[in-house]
């Protein structure tokens, strides 16, 4: 039980992610997450506006169940499995974040400066989250996948488009953390 409540190291998490991929394929489907954004658009009626969304979402019922599982699993983890959200950050990272105005770096999973009530109830904070979401939804669909579909499934099956996509992920991520975050905070 003690092990369950401790943070899991990378050499436990990585293999368990690979096992999740194995099971997903074993159950007969292609592992990925971001196609669900399109499926959810179809479910809320986007097909009335654009033919792109005129699809039968029931064919993706398995993926929607996976998403419901993700939500349930998130609640289970948050409520029961993580008594202490502290993250063992590099002291350099904590100092760097403090200089940017992020206090208490790593004492919980999500910084108050982005996820706290004061942040998301301000116009700026709300827009930071909303626009990030738009970039995630648009970018993953344009690229044809996310971390699961491209970085894990695509790279491991040696697909060139996935290598390009992952290079893109890092270009964007580096621009965001090195230049945009200091600009925004």
């Amino acid at each position, binding site marked *: 039980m003690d092990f369950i409540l401790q943070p*899991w190291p990378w050499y436990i998490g990585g*293999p368990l992610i690979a096992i999740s991929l194995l099971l997903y394929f074993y159950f007969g489907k292609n592992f990925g997450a971001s196609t669900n954004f399109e499926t959810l658009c179809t479910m809320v009626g986007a097909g009335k506006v654009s033919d792109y969304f005129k699809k039968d979402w029931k064919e993706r019922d398995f993926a929607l169940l996976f998403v419901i*599982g993700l939500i349930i*699993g998130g609640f289970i983890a948050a409520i029961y499995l993580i008594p202490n959200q502290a993250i063992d950050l590099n002291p350099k990272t904590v100092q760097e974040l403090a200089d940017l105005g992020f206090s208490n770096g790593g004492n919980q999973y999500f910084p108050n400066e982005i996820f706290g009530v004061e942040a998301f109830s301000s116009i700026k904070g709300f827009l930071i989250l909303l626009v990030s979401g738009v970039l*995630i939804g648009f970018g993953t669909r344009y690229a044809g996948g996310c971390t699961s579909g491209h970085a894990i499934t695509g790279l*491991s099956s040696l697909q060139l*488009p996935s290598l390009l*996509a992952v290079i893109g*992920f890092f270009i964007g991520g580096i621009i965001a953390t090195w230049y945009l975050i200091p600009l925004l905070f």
Partner: protein
Amino acid sequence: MKNSRFLILGIFFAIVLSKTQAISWYRFYEMFTFQSFHMFGVIGSAVVISMVFMQLFKSGKIKDINGNKIVPKPKKKGIISTLLGGTLFGLGWGISGACAAPIFIILGFELIPALILLVGALLGAFIYGLCSKKLPN
């Protein structure tokens, strides 16, 4: 219902990502600033072990539950779409610390911010659907 196995797998995957801190904003910040090995270890070991599984799929040593050969879907090709789309996703990921699956998982941790991210992501996918034919590939 036979698809309920995906529900269980979703719960499992969410717990794995949560426990290994692969949904934490800080973990991705330190990954993109190259100040920690943790996320490289998580993603790297997942990819390497998955490569072994892919070989076992290819050679037919592991078949799916119905006895069919497992063939991962080929990814759509296109240099601009993968690089530019990937970069745009990376921008959103770098700022918010969330990629696709974690958005759903974070609902359990930070409900309202995750809902804002989710509405944004649906809006983004919708905009992509509207202009997908006009975008360079």
